[in-house]
C-alpha cells in the first residue's frame, strides 16, 4: 500500500539555552518520525544527537517492508548507540556523550515505536491523549506508577536524570534493558505526537491535548503552537515536536467543527437596530391610544342618550 503521511515538525532552542541539542526528522513518504534529544551536561550532546539522526535516517531508508519491524527498529537504534559509543572512545572530548530518542515507523495501518529515555510518544484519539512510551527516568517511572502526580513530576528537581540513553555504553539489539518497542494500530482518525522533554516538562498532558485538538488540517501549525506554548511556560529546555495526524483526524476544538456544533444551538439576540426603534415603538403606543380615545369619544357621542 502506498500511503503518504503528513507531519508537522518543529524544534526550538527554548528561551534559556542558546544551543539546540535536539534533532527532529520526518520522512512522510516512508512514514518515519523521530525526535532525538542530546544529553546536555555531557560532552557533545549535540554531536550524539546528530549522529543518532544520521544513522537512523540511513537505516530506516533501507528498512525492508516484509521483515519484523520491531526487530529492525531495535537494530537501527543499537547501531546508532554503538556508533556514538565508538566515536566517543576515539575522541576524548566526546567521552560519555549520549542522547535519548523516540522513533516511530508507520507501515500501512500500524505504527512501531522504538524508544530510549524520556522523550515521549503520545496518541491522540477521540479527544483523549494517551502516553504510549514509558519514561526511562526515576521521576518519570514514579509518575507512571502514580507515586508522583504529573505536577510533582514536572517540578521535581531530579526531573533531568535518565537511566537509559543511546551512546554511553555498548548494547546488543535484543538487550531488554535498552530499546523499548511496541506496535499498535494507527487509526485514520487518530494522531501521533513525538516530543522531547522540553515540551512535556512544562506543559501538562491536558495542555498538550488542548493544542492538539485545535488541528484543522495544517500539522505544522500545531507543531508551532506547541513550541510557542512551551516557551510561554518558561521554555527552559530545547523543545522538539513531530505531529502526525491520521488522514481523518480532526481536532475537537477545531474552528470548523466548533462552528458546525454551534449551529445546532444558536441563540440569537434580536437586533436592536439603532436608537429609533424604542421611540417608534412609543410613538405607536401613543397613536393607538389616541385612536382608541377618539373611537370611545365617537361612541359616547353616538350612543349616549
Amino acid at each position: 500500500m502506498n500511503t503518504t503521511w503528513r507531519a508537522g515538525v518543529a524544534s526550538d532552542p527554548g528561551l534559556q539555552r542558546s544551543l539546540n541539542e535536539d534533532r527532529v526528522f520526518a520522512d512522510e513518504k516512508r512514514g518515519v518520525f523521530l525526535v532525538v534529544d542530546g544529553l546536555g551536561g555531557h560532552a557533545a550532546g549535540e554531536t550524539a544527537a546528530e549522529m543518532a539522526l544520521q544513522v537512523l535516517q540511513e537505516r530506516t531508508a533501507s528498512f525492508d517492508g516484509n521483515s519484523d519491524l520491531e526487530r529492525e527498529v531495535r537494530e537501527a537504534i543499537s547501531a546508532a548507540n554503538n556508533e556514538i559509543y565508538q566515536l566517543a572512545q576515539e575522541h576524548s572530548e566526546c567521552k560519555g556523550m549520549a542522547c535519548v530518542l523516540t522513533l516511530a515507523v508507520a507501515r500501512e495501518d500500524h505504527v512501531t515505536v522504538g524508544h530510549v529515555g524520556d522523550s515521549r510518544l503520545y496518541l491522540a484519539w477521540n479527544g483523549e491523549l494517551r502516553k504510549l512510551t514509558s519514561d526511562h527516568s526515576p521521576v518519570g517511572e514514579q509518575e507512571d506508577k502514580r507515586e508522583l502526580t504529573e505536577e510533582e513530576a514536572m517540578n521535581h528537581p531530579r526531573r533531568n536524570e535518565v537511566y537509559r540513553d543511546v551512546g554511553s555504553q555498548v548494547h546488543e539489539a535484543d538487550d531488554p534493558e535498552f530499546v523499548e518497542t511496541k506496535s499498535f494500530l494507527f487509526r485514520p482518525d487518530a494522531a501521533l505526537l513525538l516530543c522531547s522533554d522540553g515540551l512535556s516538562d512544562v506543559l501538562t498532558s491536558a495542555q498538550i491535548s488542548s493544542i492538539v485538538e485545535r488541528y484543522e488540517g495544517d500539522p505544522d501549525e500545531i507543531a508551532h503552537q506547541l513550541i510557542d506554548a512551551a516557551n510561554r511556560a518558561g521554555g527552559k529546555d530545547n523543545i522538539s515536536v513531530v505531529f502526525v495526524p491520521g488522514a481523518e483526524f480532526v481536532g475537537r476544538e477545531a474552528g470548523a467543527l466548533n462552528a458546525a456544533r454551534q449551529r445546532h444551538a444558536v441563540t440569537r439576540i434580536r437586533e436592536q437596530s439603532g436608537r429609533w426603534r424604542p421611540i417608534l415603538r412609543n410613538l405607536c403606543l401613543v397613536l393607538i391610544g389616541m385612536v382608541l380615545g377618539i373611537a370611545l369619544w365617537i361612541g359616547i357621542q353616538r350612543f349616549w342618550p
Partner: protein
Amino acid sequence: MGQQPKLGGTKLGEARLDGNVIIGELIRNMELGRFEMTYTVLLPCVFTVYLNPQDHAMLRGVFDLVIDDARKALRARVTELNNDSGLLGIRRRTKSAKEFKIAGREWSIEFLPEPEVPQGDVEIHSELNETSEPGYRGMKTTLMGREPVVSGHRTTGPRVQANYDAEPVFAEIRYEDDSGPQVYLMTQNRIRIGRGGDDQPMDLALYTNDEVSREHLVIQRDPGTGVFSVTDLSTNGTWMEGKRLRKGAAETLPDRANIGVGEVITLNFEARK
C-alpha cells in the same frame, strides 16, 4: 511548572536585581493571569514573589517601599488598560471594550525567599483573589530571556527511588486495546471506562472500535468499606467472569476479576490491599 532544576548550581556572573525588574514582572504576570468574562476582565491581585534568599535578605528592609511603588504601577496599568484609547484619544465604544478590574480592594504582594530561584531572578505566583480554589495555583511566571544561572543539564545515572508522598493506588487494571498492553492504576473512588469522545472524558479511555460504548462501564470503590462495584452502562454489554451484567445495576466486584467490555477487551482487575 517551569521551576529551575537544582543541579549544578554554577553562577554565571552576578545578576543584580532591580526594583523595576520586579515591578515589570508583576505587571507582566498580572496581564498573563487575566480571567476573561463577558463584560469584565479580572486581573490577579494576590502576588507571591519568590526571590533567591540572598536577594531576599538584601531587599528585606525596602519591601514596603517596593510594594507601594508596585501598587501604583499596577493601578496605573489597569487604568491604562481601561482607557485603551483609539484614534485621537477617543475611546472606542465597541462590544469588546471590557472593564479590567481586580477581585479585591487592594493588591496584596508578599516576598518570600526560595533557594530554587537563581540569584537575580524573580518567580511570581498570582491568584485572582484571596480564596483561591484548592489545587489551583494561579498564574506563575519567571523572569526569562537571560542565560540560565543554574545548569539544568540532563545526567545519566542509576535508578534511584526518591521518596515522595504517594497517591494511594486502590486497584490495578491490566488490559490490551489497539494501542497495545496497558496498565491503569486506579487512584480515584470512581472511574469511568469507555471510548470517550463527544466531550465525555473517560478516566480509562479505551482505544478500540465502536463495539465499546463511549461510556461503557463504571467501577466504584466505597471509601468506607473499600469494596468495589461495577456498573454496566453500555449497548453491547459488560461481563464479569463470563456472566453478563444487568445494565444500570451495580454489582459487587471481587478483589480479582476479569471484566469483559463488549466482546472486544478484557480488563484484568486486581484490588490492591
